[in-house]
């Protein structure tokens, strides 16, 4: 009964959306803002990756919000799992096998490095702070899986989160005082496109995001794996 009703209702919605999609031809150029970004994104922001120039340049404010969302979730998860938690005990699990342990210890720095590469080169190649951060976090996930009992120090992860966010906001606020008087305006020299040191504040922001996202996602995993404190 319930399924039937759901299907009927969803069918109605599908029909409605389908009708609307007729107006949005697939695979054709309907953009107007996007076209501008492609045309002048390189000059405006100095980033080769136009997605990056949109994410950290034109729509950097969204990204600030996005970072905040992740921050909220990490903090909120901590709060939810911490308050009135049934036990502060760590579950005793048998340690991983030596092969896994050694493999993890070996892979951990490599994955970290890969993550760092991804977010440092965010303005040049696909990837950026979020992807890099997620990879960094997956390194920590590996540690949890392979080297049970190891945990990141909360002080450090908190400080990283905090500093990452502060760098982002601080860079933005500097824009108010620096050239142009706009929040998050790209006031640093843009350099040459396709060079590592180019695109003004974009790489700095992406690095900050990378650290922050890495720390937050690792914190999320940490919170879920262990009931903290």
């Amino acid at each position, binding site marked *: 009964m319930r399924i039937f009703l759901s299907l009927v209702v969803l069918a*109605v919605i599908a*029909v409605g959306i389908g009708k609307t999609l007729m107006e949005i031809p697939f695979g054709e150029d309907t953009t107007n803002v996007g076209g501008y970004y492609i045309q002048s994104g390189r000059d405006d922001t100095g980033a080769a990756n136009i997605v990056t120039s949109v994410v950290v340049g034109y729509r950097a404010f969204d990204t600030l919000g996005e970072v905040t969302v992740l921050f909220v979730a990490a903090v909120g998860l901590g709060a939810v799992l911490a308050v009135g938690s049934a036990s502060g005990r760590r579950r005793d699990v048998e340690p991983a096998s030596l092969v896994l342990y050694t493999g993890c210890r070996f892979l951990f720095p490599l994955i970290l490095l890969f993550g760092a590469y991804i977010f440092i080169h965010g303005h040049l190649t696909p990837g950026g702070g979020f992807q890099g951060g997620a990879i960094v976090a997956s390194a920590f996930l590996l540690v949890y899986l392979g080297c049970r009992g190891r945990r990141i120090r909360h002080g450090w992860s908190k400080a990283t989160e905090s500093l990452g966010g502060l760098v982002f906001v601080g860079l933005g606020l500097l824009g108010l005082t620096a050239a142009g008087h706009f929040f998050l305006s790209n006031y640093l020299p843009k350099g040459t496109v396709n060079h590592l040191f180019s695109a003004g504040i974009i790489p700095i922001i992406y690095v900050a995001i990378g650290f922050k996202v890495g720390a937050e996602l690792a914190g999320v995993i940490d919170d879920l794996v262990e009931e903290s404190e």
Partner: protein
Amino acid sequence: MTVELLLGVALGGALLTYVLGKISPGLRNAFALLNALALVVMISLLYGQSFERALPLGFLGLELSVRMNMLSWFFAVTILGIGLLSVIYSLVYMRNKERLDYYYATLLFINASMLGTVVAGDLLSFFVFWEMMSWSTYLLISLRGGSKAIFAGIKYIVMSLIGSLTMLVAIVSLYVSFDTLSITELAGHVQSTTMGQALFVLVLFSVTFVIINALWPFHTWLPDAHAEAVSPFSAILSAVLVRKGLYGLYLLMYAMLGFSMLGKLAWGALSYSNVLAWIGAITIVFAAFRALMQNDSKRILAWSTVGQGGYMVLGVSVATNLGMAGGTFHILNHCIYIALLFFVAGAIEYRTGGIRDLDSLGGLIKRMPVAFVGGLVGICGLIGVPLTNGFVSKWLIYKSLVLEGRPFLAFAAFLGTWGTILYGYKFIHNIFLGQLPDRFRDVKGIPFTMAVPIVILTVLIFLFGVLPGIPLSVVDQVGTYLGFESLNVSIWGIPSETGTLNVVNLLAALAVAGFIVWLVLRAIGRSVSVDQDDTYAAGAAIPSGKYHYTVGFYSPLYRIVGPYVRDFVDAFFLKIAGWTGSVCGVTRKIYTGFVGNYVMYIILFLAALIFVQIAWSPW
């Protein structure tokens, strides 16, 4: 002496009373008394003045104003006078009770807001003060605590809220049409309005005023509220607060709409005044019988308040200068004797330890003579015995009804008076006459400060009864202010072509009649007083409690009319409240607690929007 100052003193005094109460109770009492007294002095200084002034504070682009004229002055003086007496009375009555700071502050606040309603020069400030009056009254009705008082409070505030919401709609509708709320300006504009709107506004306003004036069928809040409030406050409720409804009717019918407009709002016999008059008549009769059925001293008085309101409305709706004068004068008179009676009932309650049940009182005449005199005079005024003020006003109302050719209405009014006599007698008899129950042997008389208001009011009843010209000259000025022809008032009464009301002649006639009665009684001989236990049934003495014959007073009458005078309106309203409760109980079941359902609501809402658009494309 300005009205702003008056209002400021009244409102500020109320707040200050509360603060002072936190410092010292004595200081608070003194201040409350002083404040009430100062207000009376101030209002008497304002006698005869007439002005309208804008307040410095506007409200949402509207100009607020206060005004003073005979109508306002008349109502203000009753409010402040009863307020003062009530405060005096409270000093002892409320002693040793809890929350006195709250009590005095709220009492004075209610007085201040009532004062505000009558001096308001525009409908918005009228409404604001009206609402302040409503909620502060609500805060005081339940003061005693207990389920009955709480029920009375909620009943009052819900009715009152209905009234104020309808009034708000009416006021705003006027504002939307004429872009002003000043009463004087509206009076000019209203003449140009359409019939439909006039009727809309009139009906909405009338609902409010009928509710607050507790006319049938919206009387149901009053008996509960008046009976359950503390007595000094019941006096205020009954004497002045209820009559704000009449003030509203005056404003509406005469100050704003005017005769011509009222005259136009008629379909044959079904005119606004007629409907109102019949509501008044029904109220009179219904309330008289309901009062008769009560066994609670304050409830009797409460129902009599309902009934007397009917007289006033009768007088007002007749819309001749005589009827108007009768109605207006009756407001004053009622205010005097009902306050007196509540004070008396309160005094009995105070001395007997909270007893209001008429079956268990009796014989208090010797223990509380002042109360007896006050009660008797008050009841006489209520009934309209000659030489008391009630007589004059009722006489004016009857006369106007007869002159206007409204025999049925006049008959209803007479019927009501008979009822009044019956329950008035019951009140006096069951409290003061008959045997004194043993447990009341040691009851003391009324304390001095409680006696003061009683004595003052008793004197006033006689004064206005014997010299009706004093108040009538004021009443006449109210009438002329509202546009009625002036009555020719002399100090002794109203001389006119169709029979003269002259209290001197009446006095003489009564003196002669009294002398004859005295002679007859003397000729028949003295009655013999016997001891209470000096009665025998089949030779055996019965314990005195058994034949306390106030129990079941009028019970034959109850058996006959009882089934027909149930308060079915009240029952109806309670039923509506019950229905609302069940509707609520059903409605809340929407929120089943299962989150899948909740998501289903969201999706259904979306699907419904889309479906309607696809099917009918209304948007």
